[in-house]
């Protein structure tokens, strides 16, 4: 039966706080809209009709539940069982659609028909443009010029779907600049516009709302592990850009004290400032895009440039709940570099016949570095690699 996993619905944290992180640091113009959004989300997530609409689209349109695949040849390499949660098989090719569908249903309910989004890898923009086509809504996607260049296929798809793709910033501009510009659009058009943020970042209630919508990944994966292996995984591994696929899968295991949670950030070209996207590993607490978390910044509080081979991890911030999971020690975070991600990309392709997104390749690479001989590893394979072929092929020796 096609029954998607259930959402893990929690009450929104008071004032959006996760320990000392989170909050809502935005211009007054949008504060009332954020309060309205929180109230509307609480109401919708408690309404069986809303949930039925959401699960209906997830099953009949997006293709949930996604399979859990026992990666046998990769397991031999890892020296222990590796299971892949196949979000790459979701419609549009990444986990981002879970969030886009949920937020658009919510926007419809709130009577907002103009949708803005930011995108880095283009997967969130693509998911939003797709859901807007499905539901008949106007869609504007902000995207940094550098990302438009390296994710050209996704740009073309978004345009085919009827979205307007707005180039942002100078030729080096990426996800950070696109996010700032999407927020400015929202500040300007807040009365009729809903801002669909693409990860568990931004002002409250977004980190809570996006986590709730992505928790479908974790609740499915946990049930599938129990059904197929009779036990819980020893480690859950996921890539962390803003952190939505990671929180989505972690959410179901937070109470399972024996299950280790491992987030993987972009190590880029190395630990020098500007050469990576390891906000948790190498950043410091600060405020970016409306919430307090770990960010990459200079001592004056100016946000630093970032680099990753993977556009979706090329971001100087991270969701506040991850900052708190690191502070409390419940989750651990590591950074793997461009080369390690590329190696894992090729390995998974050859060993399992699955071409992964470069974001997800970071998670695969981290799984392969865990000590062998342990219990099962559950990897969130957040997306497929079609969008990255040009980047990968461009790197190959001629």
């Amino acid at each position, binding site marked *: 039966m096609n029954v998607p996993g259930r959402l893990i619905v929690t009450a929104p944290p008071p004032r959006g706080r996760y320990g000392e992180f989170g909050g809502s640091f935005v211009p*007054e113009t949008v504060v009332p809209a954020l309060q309205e959004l929180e109230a509307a989300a609480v109401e919708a997530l408690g309404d069986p009709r809303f949930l039925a609409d959401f699960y209906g689209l997830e099953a009949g349109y997006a293709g949930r539940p996604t399979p859990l695949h026992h990666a046998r040849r990769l397991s031999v390499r890892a020296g222990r069982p590796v299971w892949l949660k196949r979000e790459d098989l979701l419609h549009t090719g990444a986990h981002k659609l879970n969030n886009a569908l949920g937020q658009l249903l919510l926007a419809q309910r709130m009577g907002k028909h103009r949708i803005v989004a930011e995108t880095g890898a283009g997967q969130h923009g693509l998911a939003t443009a797709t859901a807007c086509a499905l539901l008949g809504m106007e869609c504007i996607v902000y995207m940094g010029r550098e990302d438009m260049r390296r994710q050209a296929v996704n740009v073309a798809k978004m345009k085919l779907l009827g979205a307007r793709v707005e180039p942002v910033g100078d030729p080096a501009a990426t996800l950070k600049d696109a996010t700032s510009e999407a927020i400015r659009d929202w500040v300007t058009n807040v009365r009729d516009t809903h801002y669909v943020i693409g990860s568990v970042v931004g002002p409250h209630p977004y980190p809570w709302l996006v986590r709730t919508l992505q928790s479908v990944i974790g609740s499915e994966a946990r049930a599938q592990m129990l059904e197929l292996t009779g036990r819980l995984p020893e480690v859950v591994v996921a890539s962390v850009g803003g952190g939505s696929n990671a929180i989505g899968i972690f959410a179901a295991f937070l109470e399972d004290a024996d299950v280790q949670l491992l987030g993987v950030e972009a190590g880029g070209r190395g630990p020098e400032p500007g050469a990576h996207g390891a906000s948790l590993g190498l950043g410091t607490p*600060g405020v970016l895009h409306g919430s307090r978390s770990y960010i990459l910044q200079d001592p004056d509080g100016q946000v630093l440039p970032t680099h990753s081979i993977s556009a979706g991890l090329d971001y100087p911030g991270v969701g506040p709940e991850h900052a708190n999971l690191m502070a409390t020690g419940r989750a651990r975070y590591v950074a793997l570099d461009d080369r390690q991600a590329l190696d894992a990309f090729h390995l998974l392709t050859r060993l399992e016949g699955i071409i992964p997104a470069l974001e997800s390749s970071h998670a695969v690479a981290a799984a392969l570095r865990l000590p062998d001989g342990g219990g099962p590893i559950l990897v969130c394979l957040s997306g497929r690699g079609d969008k990255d072929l040009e980047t990968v092929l461009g790197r190959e020796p001629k």
Partner: protein
Amino acid sequence: MSAAGDAILAALPRSGEEPRVCPYLMAGFPDPEGTADLLLAAEAGGGAVLEVGIPHSDPLADGPTIQAAGRLALARGMTTRIALAQVAKARTRGLRVPVVCMTYLNPVAQFGLEDFCQAAAAAGVDALLVPDLPLEEMEELEGAASRAGLALCTMVAPTTPDRRLTLAATRATGFVYCVSRTGVTGTGDPTEGASLLERVRALSDRPLVLGFGVRRRSQVVSLTGLADGVAVGSRIVEAARGDDPAASVREVVAELCGR
């Protein structure tokens, strides 16, 4: 009320005359050491209260003109410390009008809220305006500002419901900054702000400053009886781009003041 709050009240009297002009300058634009000159020029042109923006890499409330000015200032080495030093320099050279420091939260948070307020007060800043710090999150800065003798301005927008307007007006120890329309700096038509000004006026006796989108003298005049001050940002920043930034800033401010 702090002495700083009193100075702002005195500079923006409710008189039935046209509103006073409050020029905004981006600290460090066009060059880091030139800000003191521009502050003095803005005062000489007739500016009643000066706003000094601390440049930030991610200014969520700013439109293209002020974004570009901030980016250039940062590229030329501007820092929060140099900005405060420039205010101090202008004070030693005789600047008398109140100065409001407009800054995003993160540069202040990294400086340390307490240290920043003390340093700003020592430099001769009278008040702070932090556009990404909503009323719900203001308490800590409020304490630090009041210990340093700094006033705090609050912001309201056309989307702000009456309940929050009252809160914003009571929390302001400086002026209440009224955003003329939903949007970022440099956009909008200030006459759209009239209904917001009327709503706040009914709830508060704090000085009201209208901003976002004011570019011309006729707009300043049209706000007579509604606003006590008008903030002019992008137009002044554009003037500072010229060959002689101080002369152009003085000229534009004088024109806005009808001098």
